[in-house]
């Protein structure tokens, strides 16, 4: 066997150009499959990371209308019949066995009335949050401080901004101590927070999704108790729950939404609570990516088939060329099976080599794709190993006919030929 492999390499090496051209079909086929699989893997990794990393198992349960997030711009867009979340409701949610933490918050999408110096700000979100919010949603402090109990008790006009808002507004200058005016009330910036489990989204849809959820220019957080001072009304709130595990996210969100919807007094309200289904979104995206890539894999498979036929063709030529060698070996006592194995090994080594080169160029190709399109790629090692084994299989399948032809050669005929 080892002798056969040595012979195979010797044969391949002595016909470098021919061997390479023979392998080319396999190389191209395997390379394209690996490149495709790498992008699938990259997409899946990114989506998974997105799910596990960014959310920290938290689910937004927010007001929606017709499937879209319902955004409150001003007092006239406050929906009626949706009460402020009571302590009782909060406890009911917390009692759910797949919920670990719960926090509720006010949210407004700012269109006017917010100023920094004499600049009018738009496209910012303002959140009115309680003490649990940052912890639940996994925000960490970058500079300054978090809210203190006194901020709530004394209705202090302080805000914490997120990293995005800080970057957009203060452009690198120290944000602490600056004043932002919201509805004629001056607020002092006391801290900057960032999402501790950050993730740079690369996939367009998820990107859109995140932008939609967090506000494009950034977020101002103020103590919830200060909210009525600025906006005059008690407003319906959104909820974030932290599920006990990633798998429980969908269920936790749905149950929370049900509880919240039960509290809505206006039974005809078109605005209701619903939970975002991150798991579902990710799954749908993965399925979509996989489905479209499966078709590409079939196409690449055809190139493998063509490559296999090429191998068969060259092997047939090689058998004819080496009639003397085969005849001699049989004459000095090589069994049929020994000849069969020699040629099968040669075909398998040739295509495995093609497979390995294919995996290599496939990985290189996916890096190039990543460089030029930004699509995330990840090396899928099981797929790479399967690809090499598969190409070996191609060699065996397509090498079978030529190998049988070789092993069936009549040694007398073979030796007579000069």
């Amino acid at each position, binding site marked *: 066997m080892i002798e056969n492999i040595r012979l195979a390499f010797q044969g391949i090496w002595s016909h470098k150009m021919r061997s390479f051209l023979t392998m080319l079909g396999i190389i191209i086929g395997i390379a394209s499959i690996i490149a495709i699989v790498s992008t699938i893997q990259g997409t899946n990794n990114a989506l998974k990371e997105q799910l596990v990393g960014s959310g920290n198992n938290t689910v937004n349960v927010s007001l929606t209308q017709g499937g879209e997030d319902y955004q409150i711009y001003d007092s006239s867009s406050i929906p009626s019949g949706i009460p402020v979340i009571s302590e009782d409701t909060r406890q009911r949610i917390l009692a759910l066995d797949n919920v670990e933490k719960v926090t509720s918050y006010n949210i407004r999408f700012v269109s006017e009335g917010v100023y920094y110096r004499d600049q009018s700000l738009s496209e910012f979100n303002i959140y009115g949050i309680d003490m649990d919010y940052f912890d639940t949603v996994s925000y960490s402090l970058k500079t300054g401080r978090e809210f203190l109990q006194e901020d709530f008790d004394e209705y202090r006009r302080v805000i914490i901004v997120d990293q995005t808002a800080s970057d957009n507004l203060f452009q690198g200058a120290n944000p602490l101590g600056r004043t932002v005016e919201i509805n004629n009330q001056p607020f002092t910036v006391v801290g900057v927070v960032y999402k501790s489990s950050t993730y740079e989204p690369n996939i367009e849809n998820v990107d859109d999704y995140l932008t939609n959820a967090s506000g494009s220019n950034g977020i101002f957080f103020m103590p919830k108790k200060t909210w009525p001072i600025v906006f005059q009304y008690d407003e319906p709130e959104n909820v974030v729950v932290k599920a006990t595990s990633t798998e429980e996210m969908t269920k936790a969100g749905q149950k929370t939404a049900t509880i919240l919807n039960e509290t809505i007094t206006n039974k005809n309200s078109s605005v209701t609570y619903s939970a975002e289904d991150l798991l579902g979104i990710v799954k749908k995206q993965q399925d979509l990516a996989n489905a479209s890539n499966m078709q590409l894999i079939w196409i690449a498979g055809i190139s493998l088939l063509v490559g296999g036929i090429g191998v068969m063709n060259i092997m047939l030529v090689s058998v004819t060329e080496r009639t003397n060698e085969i005849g001699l070996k049989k004459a000095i006592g090589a069994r049929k099976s020994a000849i069969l194995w020699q040629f099968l090994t040669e075909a398998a080594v040739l295509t495995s080599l093609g497979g390995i080169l294919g995996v290599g160029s496939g990985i290189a190709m996916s890096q190039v794709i990543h460089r030029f399109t930004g699509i995330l790629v990840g090396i899928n090692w099981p797929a790479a190993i399967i690809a090499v084994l598969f190409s070996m299989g191609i060699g065996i399948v397509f090498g079978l006919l030529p190998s049988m032809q070789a092993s069936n050669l009549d040694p007398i005929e073979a*030796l007579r030929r000069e």
Partner: protein
Amino acid sequence: MVLKLDHIDKDYITPKLIVPVLHDVTLHVEEGEYVAIMGPSGSGKSTLMNIIGCLDRPTKGTYELNGENVLNKNDRDMAAIRLNNLGFVFQNFQLLSRQSALDNVALPLVYAGVRKRERIKRAKAALTRVGLQDRMSFTPAQLSGGQKQRVAIARAMVNNPRLLLADEPTGALDSRSSTALMQLFEELNQEGVTIVMITHAPEIASYAKRVCNIFDGVLTERTDSDRTRIEAAGGKGL
């Protein structure tokens, strides 16, 4: 008795016609004999050799090798006989051009399942035996005709067969190399190897202790009077 061929007929069956080649050939060879078979081209020498070498089967007749009937054996067993009991030397050497002399000689041992270390040891010994100890790593292209045929003999002898079959071993050699080769054959024969050799050339046949003539597929034992006649004619022609 090493070889015992009795009443062998061989017809080649082609799609168009049946070509009768050997007729009622009977050849008995004792252990340690050195037999030359002479005959004109197309007389059936190689055909007979292929039957002796277990590469082909006769149409009729019986063949015993070392007391065993080989004709009722299957292809696999025939291959085993070729591997273990016979050594072949061909007119055109039949060496693998991409492999070194050593690898060529070791080839039968690969099929005999001998381990690599042992293979190399025995191949080296065989090459040394034919005087090529300083040419082991040469490829056939780097060897002279005579040296190539020595490599072929080393290969034929590496598995220690008792019978050496040579089909025109000197056919591609000049007279000096031929003489050297015949000396080697003589030595091997003295060591106890039975040799059956085919040749055109009477001066080559004269090295053998026994000569058979084959003409149109009929084998006849050459008598001493024939031999004298040929030697008188200066060893030329038949």
